[in-house]
Structure formats: structure tokens, C-alpha cells
């Protein structure tokens, strides 16, 4: 239940509880202090009255003499005067008060509450001897009223403060969370309709900035994935449509008018060749699907893989006068010979196509993987091209009569990645591609 409450409600609740706790402590403390002060004030008043009465007494022969009776009517504070334990003077208000006053007179003095009246006793001492006691009584009704009013008032104030603080917290929270809601909905809309848009909030300096940069990163990755998918689709489409286009064009042409046998034979040979190429492309696509779904396991000697891939390009190399070499060795790679050949061949074809005189495949071990560096002494790949070489029209040119799959670089990389490896284009003079495959 609490997990389903919104973050806004939870923060609001938390701040409300904190403010309420603080207010309870404040109200309790205020009222305790106030009651203590009021009690002290009542004592002061009673003591002042008793002391005033004390000064009007005369002590004669060890006993208390009353010069004149206290004016009970003029003063709202009744006074008892005891000589020893005997009341010399009593206001005769209420019997219970008389008894309490007598009780105080026989003790050491101090204060005692009887109902809403406070009695305060002051001993009468002469020459170090206690002769009697003066007891004054004050009504506590006014003090109790004050305490009561203060309690109600402080409670009301606390409730009002709590309400105001909750309102303020709600306003601040919605102000603070509004950008989050806006960014969330913007990111949702962009991810669907406009993958080029970014928050671009610059260096993050607060939580919102971090959220913006995180969302930007996510959008980048979605855009990249989508672009890669589109490139792959375009690449597959090209790989499948080109041989198909040749077949259709060749048969269309052949059928347009009567031809001699040689022309038909040539047309059929073209159809056959391109059908084989289509088979190769489809095999590779299926291979990639099986490899990435983990259905395919195998291993091969990297040198054998490179030799087989290079063998398909020998004719192209010979036609262009390129010296094609394979060197180095390493532990077995975790792909079978067919798959490795399909990955490597387009790169070797590419090298043979762009080399001036030399193309080389160098095999080396690199940690848990095996690398095949395919280099040539051609013009190489510019920095600008390096990022786009896997997407543009840079493709291994097919060699007539060769049944090699003749894959584009994008498909070859797809295949390498599905086998847990990769293909990268390296900077520098001449073409330089590195195929990485996991070793066994």
C-alpha cells in the first residue's frame, strides 16, 4: 500500500510528521514552563501577604500580640495567625481551609494546595525561637484560567502552523517535482517521435541535471540501437536485393526476344551464380541468428580460418597484382571454420580491392581473444570514414564465379558480434581492420 503512494504523498507525510512532532514538544514544554511560572507567582503573592502581616505583629513575653485585626474585607487574601498551634486570628472562610492552615502551622511552613486555593505559611521567629506561624491563602482560579487559555491557544496555534507548513511543503514539493514530471514526459515523447532531441543541460550540478544527462544517455543509446537496426536492415536488404535484381534483369532481358543458345546459357549461368550468392547470404543470416541464440558451438584453428577466407580472394588478388599473405598463429578460436571464414572474408576482399601491392592477415593472441589484423597498403580509411565504413557502400566487390558469401562489412561485423567478437577499423596509413574473436 505504502509502496503505491506517490513520492509526493510520501514526502508530504514525512515532513508533516516531523513538523507535528516538533510542535508537540514545543507545546508541552511551553505549557510546563508556564505552569511552573504561574505557581511561583502565586507563592510570591501569598508570601508577600504573610510577610506584610508578620511585620504588624509584636512579640511580648514570648507570645504573639495582635495590635490590630487584619482587615479581612479589604484584602482578598485571607490570613491566619497562629501563636504556637493556637489560632490567634482566623478569617473563618471555610472549615477545610482552617484545618489545612492549622496543619501548616504545626509543620515547618511552606505551601499547600487545597482545592483551588494555595496556603503559604511563614514561621514567626524571635530570638531563635519559633513562636507561631502566619498563613496566607491565595485563590488559584485566575492562574488556572491563564494556564487553560494558554494551553488551548498554543494547541490552536500548533494546528494552524502544521496546516500552513503542510500547504507550504506541498507547494514546494510540486514546484520541485514539476521539472521531473516535465522531463519524464518529454523523454517519453522524444523516444517515440523525435530521437534527435536532447535536454543538453550541460555539466550536471544537481539531481535534475543528473537526471537530464542520464535521460540523454538513454536516448543516445536508443537512437544508436535504432540506427544500427536500420543500417543492418538496409545492409541485408542490399545484400538480398542486388543478386535478385541481377537475376530478374538477366531473365527479363533474355525473354524479351529470341536469343541464340549461347545467350541463354550465359543468362542461366548468371542466374545460377546469383542464386548461389543469395544462398550464401541467407546461410550467413541464419548462422548469425543461431550463433547469437547460442545454438552453435565449435572451434577452429585461426590460421585455417584465415587461409580458407584468403583462398576465396586469391583470384581477385592475382587479377589486381596484389600479394596476399597470411601470417602468425594463435590458440583455437571459439567459432567453427565456416563462421570464421564468413566473418573474415569480406575484410580480406576489401583489402585486396584497395591495396596497391600488398595485403596481409596477421594472427595474434590478445588475452582471452584472438585478433586477425587485416592490413593493406592502399589509401586506408580516413577518420571520417572510419565511423561510417560499416554503413556506406564500402563493400567487398564480388569476384565473378566465386561462390563466397560476399558479405558487406556491416553483416560481417554483425556476425562477429553475435559470436562474442567484433570488427573495428583502425586509424593509420593503409587499410587496417581488426577482427577479434574469443579463443577457446
Amino acid at each position, binding site marked *: 500500500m505504502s509502496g503505491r503512494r506517490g513520492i509526493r504523498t510520501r514526502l508530504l507525510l514525512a515532513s508533516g510528521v516531523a513538523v507535528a512532532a516538533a510542535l508537540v514538544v514545543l507545546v508541552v514544554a511551553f505549557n510546563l514552563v508556564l505552569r511552573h511560572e504561574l505557581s511561583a507567582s502565586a507563592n510570591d503573592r501569598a508570601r508577600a501577604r504573610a510577610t506584610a502581616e508578620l511585620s504588624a505583629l509584636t512579640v511580648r513575653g514570648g507570645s504573639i500580640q495582635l495590635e490590630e485585626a487584619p482587615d479581612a474585607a479589604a484584602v482578598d487574601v485571607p490570613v491566619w495567625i497562629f501563636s504556637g498551634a493556637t489560632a490567634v486570628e482566623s478569617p473563618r472562610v471555610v472549615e477545610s481551609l482552617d484545618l489545612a492552615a492549622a496543619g501548616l502551622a504545626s509543620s515547618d511552613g511552606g505551601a499547600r494546595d487545597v482545592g483551588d486555593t494555595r496556603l503559604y505559611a511563614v514561621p514567626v521567629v524571635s530570638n531563635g525561637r519559633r513562636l507561631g506561624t502566619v498563613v496566607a491563602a491565595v485563590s488559584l482560579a485566575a492562574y488556572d484560567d491563564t494556564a487553560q487559555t494558554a494551553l488551548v491557544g498554543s494547541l490552536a496555534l500548533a494546528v494552524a502552523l502544521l496546516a500552513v507548513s503542510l500547504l507550504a511543503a506541498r507547494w514546494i514539493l510540486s514546484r520541485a517535482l514539476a521539472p521531473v514530471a516535465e522531463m519524464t514526459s518529454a523523454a517519453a515523447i522524444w523516444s517515440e517521435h523525435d530521437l534527435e*532531441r536532447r535536454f543538453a543541460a550541460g555539466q550536471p550540478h544537481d539531481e535534475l541535471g543528473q537526471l537530464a544527462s542520464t535521460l540523454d544517455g538513454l536516448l543516445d543509446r536508443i537512437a544508436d540501437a535504432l540506427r544500427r537496426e536500420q543500417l543492418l536492415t538496409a545492409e541485408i536488404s542490399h545484400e538480398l536485393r542486388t543478386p535478385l535484381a541481377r537475376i530478374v534483369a*538477366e531473365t527479363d532481358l533474355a525473354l524479351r526476344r529470341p536469343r541464340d543458345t549461347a545467350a541463354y546459357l550465359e543468362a542461366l549461368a548468371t542466374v545460377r551464380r546469383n542464386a548461389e550468392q543469395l544462398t550464401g547470404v541467407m546461410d550467413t543470416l541464419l548462422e548469425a541468428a543461431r550463433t547469437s541464440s547460442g545454438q552453435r558451438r565449435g572451434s577452429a584453428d585461426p590460421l585455417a580460418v584465415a587461409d580458407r577466407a584468403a583462398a576465396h580472394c586469391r583470384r581477385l588478388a592475382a587479377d589486381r597484382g596484389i600479394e596476399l599473405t597470411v601470417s602468425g598463429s594463435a590458440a583455437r578460436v571459439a567459432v567453427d571454420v565456416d563462421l570464421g571464414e564468413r566473418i573474415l572474408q569480406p575484410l580480406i576482399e576489401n583489402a585486396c580491392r584497395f591495396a596497391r601491392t600488398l595485403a596481409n592477415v596477421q594472427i595474434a593472441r590478445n588475452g582471452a581473444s584472438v585478433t586477425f589484423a587485416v592490413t593493406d597498403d592502399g589509401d586506408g580509411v580516413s577518420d571520417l570514414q572510419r565511423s561510417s565504413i560499416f554503413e556506406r557502400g564500402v563493400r567487398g566487390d564480388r569476384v565473378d564465379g566465386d561462390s563466397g558469401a560476399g558479405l558487406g562489412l556491416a553483416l560481417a561485423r554483425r556476425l562477429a558480434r553475435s559470436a562474442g567478437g567484433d570488427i573495428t577499423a583502425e586509424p593509420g596509413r593503409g587499410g587496417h581492420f581488426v577482427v577479434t574473436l574469443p579463443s577457446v
Partner: protein
Amino acid sequence: VSEPLILIAEDDDELRGLVVRGLREEGFAVAASATAAGLQQLAERRQPDALILDIGLPDADGRDLCQALRARGLNVPVLFLTARDALPDRLSGFAAGGDDYLIKPFSFDELVARLRAQVRRGGPEPRDASGLIVDPSTHSARFGEESVTLTPTEYRLLGLLVGRAGETVRRRELIQAGWPHGAIVHENTLDAYLARLRRKLRQLPDAPGITTAHGVGYTLG
């Protein structure tokens, strides 16, 4: 009546050979190249009656090549022949100045029919080129001896303006040429790109500048 001359840019040797052979049988004069640079040389030598361009050429994008040819004042029909069948690709082909779009694999009869229709209608008279040359392989603009490099988007925007020099090109058309179909391009994004293009053109002495037709579009020269 002389045979209409068709120029073809297609990087697949076998398919190029087939199209050349088939079109010759149909009574066209044909010259072909595997690269954008080769096609530009062919187009300079003789005025063709129509062009067939592949989009995925080894040295340039066929659409960029089309813009470069338009920028030189070549106004003949252009037919894109490509494996790219997605709607954004087809639309960008037209936005780059193409007149027709045929997807591989294609029926040879259809190719001939479309080509005949385009040639029959013919293009408008050749335009006077502005003198600004755009290069599809390097994405650069040249005027006389000086040249500046452009980003792909700048190239496509300038290519459209140069191809229709003297004419006001609407903002909408510029956006369609510059960005893929479906991209949300804000008005001030286009203005920012045009401002950058202006700055780059100023680096070319005596090159025509870009003027703004407020609320309508932009004009080169």
C-alpha cells in the same frame, strides 16, 4: 532523330552491364560508370537526356551526386535505381531532386517504360549555373579556386539552393532535403544551419550569397 543518351551510375558491375545491354537493345545510347566521379565526368562531356543513379555508390551517396549535378545546371530527369525501399529513402530521393524512384529488384520493362516517359516529357531548359560547385564525394563547396567543407546536412541544404539558384526555395522543401523524413526540425534549427552556410560562403570570395525571403524561404544569388 538521334538516340536519347542515358547516363548510368551503378557500382554493381554485373547489374550495370545488364542495364547497359538492355537499354541499348531498346534503342537508347548509354554510358555508364561505377562511381559518382566517373558519372560527373561523363555528364560534363555530353548533355544526357536522363540519368539512372544508384544511391549506394562507393565514393558518394547517389542523392548527393544528384544535387551536385543539379547545382551544375543539369536539369534532365533523374531516376534512382536502388535497393533502399524504406519510405524515408524514397522521399529523400525526391527531395534531392530525383524525378522517379525504382526499387531493386525491378522489372526491366518497367524501367524502360519509366525512362521513356521521363525522356519524352523532357526536362526544362538547362539553368545557368551559379558558379558554385558542390562535390558529393568530399561534401565541399567550391567557387573558383577556393573551397570550404560542409557537413552532410549543410551539403544537402546548399545543394538544393544551388540547384535552384535565383529561385526562392521554400523552408519546407529545405527541411525535406536536409533531414530524413519524420525528423522534427524546429524553425530556428533551419535558420541556424542557413546562418552557418552564409558564414561558410563568405569564405569564398565573390561567391553568391544566401538571401532570406521572410516567412517564405531562402534564395541563392
